[in-house]
């Protein structure tokens, strides 16, 4: 029997529960006399509520209570990272965005609540609003900081480099608003009993949600427990302190009965954020041999008057290439919409494609192979700072990717590859992902039967946490994974940070490893010389169960250490019918360096899902805004196109493996969002190669290729 330790292709442990329907999500929780709540959203983007007539709704069958700003309890201000952008609901008569909750109808059944919600009549004093991003570009304002750090970067003299350049290339890229659209719409189940609040929510951050609830409701955190059961995808959507979560908690506290609130698909478009549109310009100055002398990346991102979210699209531009001058600037146009938020592969996932399209244009201008241009400008140390990179194997990614794809056979000229009547194109791009790490804690316990229980507050959003944590413990203790159980997604368990930023394996995984190693020490101290001795060690200690805690925290001064990134090289092939130019992705090769791979199966799944995320970004996904009504136009999965299986060609994923001891004690780096970076540019560059038309907009409009 193998233990299923680190690096092994252990099958997803939650697979059987998921294929039988036994896995329970928030909307599946047994009811136990719960009430159902439905949000009434504002239908105008800006103004004041003139009146809310709830008489008809209140008289409808089954209705128990209706909350509006007139009768809702006052909530405290929430200041939790990434939750600050959603204001506590029902606090005043102001309407700040279409979809903002203006009432909450609570009834005995979900159907009754939905029916009564239709009967709530809201009239507005409307005010002029601005939701048209392009119309607002002239009032774009600089954004100085990002999570408390300076956002923009500059070194050298770009203007001088541009003026003196032998070759200059300027490209633009417009990206669209995109919604996460996890297949599970968000839900929350809240119950108030004996002065304590229990909340079950589809959230990626139980601790942050508890903090937000404590602040909003003025409760001690100790009186709040938040659990996140199985989560039907998150991708950044399933945050904390969101209006519906506060509303459900408010309602259960007012009514003293459990309250469930599940968002509809349409409501999901205005209850949590979205990836905001950007308008980006990249200028590259180079010598005739392709050596970069300057890189300027200008980002204007759509923002909101509510909150301060900025899509930091240029944040990971600096580490891409060696260049003696660089200037990255961000500006924002605030709009009367709900706040945008981070969506899978944020920041660089939005901005790196702009740079990589420019690099492709430069290669074309120089009649140079696009991969050779990247290698010509390969950064051996972190540009700008001169810091060493920690275990950078990007060159190997390029080489292996090119080999697997057959890049060497690619003719350089656009429109030179054909398959019957179809134009075929091949493009490539670089991916780079900053390593985010957050504090985390864990506990590992063993009993006399040799059963191991692993506990940590973190979440399995589908990435496979519940599979890799036992693997980490198996590695440390020598106990097979099928002798383990796992507790996650609960504030009653050791505290972790939200699941996001591809941080979880490094952070939570390292905490679990520390706990398992601490437990092994304890067992060894009690005489256990390996797994066979564990039962005896517990006997010697006269305990039935022995537990150890572990924690992880990033070093204090990250800037003092080496530069930490994950890397990838992505190659794509598309085919386009020249007369009806709808591009189709035929195949993708992605080769990645993400440090040590804990489970090749879950890692490959993550990268594949990310690549499809990028296919959607390049070809399909757009949340259209109706600027006349100030609302998103297509709040459903028939108007918002996520890829279907036929939109996905063959995907080949490989890793250049190796430890990164600086990234985490596990030697692993983040991978969750790496696959979604670079792929859209590889597709765009392949479309150029196929058609000779430079892509300037995501998703690509077929008519631009005509």
């Amino acid at each position: 029997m193998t233990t299923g330790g680190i690096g092994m292709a252990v099958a997803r442990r939650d697979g059987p529960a998921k294929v039988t329907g036994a896995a329970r999500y928030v909307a599946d929780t047994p009811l136990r006399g719960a009430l159902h709540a439905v949000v009434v959203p504002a239908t105008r983007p800006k103004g004041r509520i003139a009146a809310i007539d709830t008489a008809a709704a209140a008289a409808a069958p089954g209705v128990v209570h209706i909350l509006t700003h007139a009768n809702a309890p006052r909530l405290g201000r929430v200041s939790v990272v990434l939750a600050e952008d959603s204001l506590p609901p029902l606090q005043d008569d102001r309407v700040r965005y279409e979809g903002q909750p203006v009432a909450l109808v609570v009834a005995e059944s979900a159907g009754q609540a939905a029916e009564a919600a239709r009967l709530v009549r809201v009239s507005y004093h409307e005010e002029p609003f601005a939701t048209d991003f392009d119309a607002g570009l002239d009032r774009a304002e600089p954004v100085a900081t990002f999570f408390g750090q300076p956002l923009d970067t500059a070194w050298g003299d770009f203007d001088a480099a541009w003026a003196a350049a032998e070759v200059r290339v300027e490209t633009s890229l417009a990206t669209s608003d995109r919604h996460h659209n996890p297949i599970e719409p968000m839900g929350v189940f809240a119950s108030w009993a004996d002065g304590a609040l229990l909340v079950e929510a589809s959230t990626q951050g139980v601790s942050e949600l508890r903090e937000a609830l404590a602040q909003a409701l003025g409760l001690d955190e100790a009186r709040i427990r938040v659990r996140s059961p199985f989560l039907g995808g998150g991708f950044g959507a399933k945050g904390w302190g969101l209006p519906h979560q506060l509303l459900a908690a408010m309602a259960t506290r007012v009514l003293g009965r459990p309250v469930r609130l599940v968002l509809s698909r349409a409501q999901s478009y205005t209850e949590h954020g979205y990836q905001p549109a950007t308008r980006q310009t990249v200028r590259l100055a180079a010598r005739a041999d392709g050596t970069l002398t300057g890189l300027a990346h200008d980002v204007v991102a759509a923002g909101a008057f509510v909150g301060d979210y900025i899509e930091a699209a240029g944040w990971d531009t600096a580490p891409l290439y060696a260049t003696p001058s660089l200037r990255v600037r961000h500006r924002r146009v605030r709009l009367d919409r709900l706040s945008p938020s981070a969506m899978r592969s944020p920041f660089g996932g939005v901005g790196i494609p702009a740079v990589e399209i420019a690099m492709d244009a430069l290669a074309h201008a120089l009649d140079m192979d696009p991969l050779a241009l990247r290698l010509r400008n390969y950064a051996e140390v972190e540009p700008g700072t001169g810091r060493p990179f920690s275990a950078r194997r990007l060159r190997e990614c390029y080489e292996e990717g090119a080999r697997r794809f057959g890049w060497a056979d690619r003719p350089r000229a656009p429109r030179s590859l054909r398959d019957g009547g179809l134009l075929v194109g091949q493009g490539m791009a670089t991916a780079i992902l900053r390593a985010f790490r957050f504090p985390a804690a864990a506990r590992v316990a063993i009993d006399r039967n040799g059963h191991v229980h692993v506990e940590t507050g973190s979440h399995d959003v589908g990435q496979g946490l519940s599979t890799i944590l036992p693997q980490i413990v198996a590695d440390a203790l020598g106990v097979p994974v099928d002798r383990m159980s796992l507790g996650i997604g609960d504030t009653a368990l050791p505290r972790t940070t939200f699941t996001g930023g591809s941080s979880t394996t490094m952070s939570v995984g390292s905490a679990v490893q520390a706990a398992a190693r601490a437990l092994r020490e304890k067992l060894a101290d009690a005489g256990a010389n390996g797994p066979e001795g564990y039962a005896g060690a517990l006997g010697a200690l006269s305990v039935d169960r022995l537990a150890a805690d572990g924690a992880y925290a990033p070093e204090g001064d990250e800037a003092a250490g080496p530069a930490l990134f994950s890397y990838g090289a992505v190659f794509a092939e598309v085919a386009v019918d020249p007369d009806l130019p709808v591009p189709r992705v035929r195949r993708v090769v992605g080769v990645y360096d993400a440090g040590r791979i804990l489970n090749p199966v879950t890692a490959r799944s993550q990268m594949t899902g990310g690549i499809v995320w990028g296919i959607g970004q390049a070809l399909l996904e757009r949340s259209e805004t109706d600027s006349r009504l100030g609302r998103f136009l297509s709040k459903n999965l028939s108007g918002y196109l996520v890829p279907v299986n036929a939109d996905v060609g063959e995907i080949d994923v490989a890793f250049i493996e190796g430890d990164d001891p600086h990234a985490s004690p596990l030697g692993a780096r983040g991978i969750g969002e790496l696959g979604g970076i670079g792929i859209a540019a590889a597709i765009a560059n392949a479309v150029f190669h196929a058609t000779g038309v430079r892509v300037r907009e995501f998703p690509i409009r077929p008519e631009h290729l005509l």
Partner: protein
Amino acid sequence: MPESPVPAPAPVRFLLGSAPVALADADPTLTLLEYLRETAGRKGTKEGCAEGDCGACTVAVGEPDGDRMRWRAMNACILFVGALHGRQVLTVEDLPAPDGSLHPVQQAMVENHASQCGFCTPGFVMSLFALYRQGRRVGRRGIGDALAGNLCRCTGYGPILAAAEAMWETPGRDDHIARQAEAARTALEEMAAEPLVGLARDGRRFLAPRTADQLAALLLEHPDAVVLSGGTDVGLWVTKQLRQLPTIVHTGRVAELARIEDGPDALIIGAAVRLSEAATAIGALYPDFGEVFRRYGSAQVRNAGTLCGNVANGSPIGDSPPGLIALGAEMTLRRGDTRRRIPVEAFFIDYGKQDRQPSEFVESITVPKPRPGWLFRMFKLSKRFDQDISAVCGAFHLEVADGTVRSARVAYGGMAATPRRALRAEAALVGRPWSEPTVRAAMAAMAEDFAPITDMRASAWYRQEAAANLLLKVYLDSRDGGAPSSVLDCEAA
């Protein structure tokens, strides 16, 4: 008041797994998904979108098919329980054997790591179950088609397709499904004999007759009734627009309308014939039409929706009308005992307005068979391969003899408020040599045929250009003697 010629309705009965269910006092628009989750306590079937887009609510709906049972994947979220009479519903909870061991489909999903967040998984499992139980192995393309109506946001689909390829060889228990099938078939056949079934609550009704005469009589009795075929559109009136429908009359149980009559010159496709069956029959005669059907909605939608319903609902962007119009198909409308037959193109009067009187229903559509010397081509143009509303759908039916175009019927969806013929383009073709100059002249004339709109799917300019280029494509393909039959058919090399 004359006595109604139809009897009082009996309860709607169906099998949930092997358990009989009878409903009489229920909301006529109660969906199967609501019933499963709220009444039956089967939480494995998920709601992801409530409009038949995501497939998380996919269940297998079984019916007797000769001496066996046949299960088809359908979306429970837009399937009214009233439409289930005489059918069996299997959900993800029904698949494991009584001893808890997994069905081969489930086992293959586990072994191939085909589930990540897991929310879409039960829907994929049920789509694959329907495919598995079809009894005939299919290749990658057939698997992809079977799963086109299931969205996954995590896996990138690869592992799910791999699970599908492996499921026929994966060990697991399927014998319990086979064992209960015979009993289910017997029970369902007994239910089928019921003359009229229905649901009623608060003065609103769902009525499902067994004969076409009853159907006609019921519609005379309830001129305001909504005629429900597959419900893939009407379902959205309820789940999205929250409309209350007073009376629903369902065509789905009428056996005589569920037939395709294979005549010498034409197929006559009855009102209750599913799109999936119509697609097979029409696709066998007109491969391009079959290719459009393949990308039309999803397997779940095609298993519920009907061809007649797709026409009758009058959408300007339905994908079958352009093909039917180009082929010169006709439709038979019936009101009481009165029938009339009109060309399909005449049915579409204006946006949201069709040539159908109260109490009248579309009884059948007559599709002419291929004639010697005629060429038929059809293309669906959409950004997403499957499950996407067409920006343009074009159909071309041309008679070319001795190098000259003798007749031309060219019809488009997405170019006007109704599916319409391009009469000026047709005129520019007829009587002229089948040559590039003729086609270019027709493309120019087409600019006068349509004034399409710009919307989120495509600009007016793109629609014009692409519509014209489709005609060019027809010509170039005919000259080159066969090219890819689908404009989006760019499979991996």
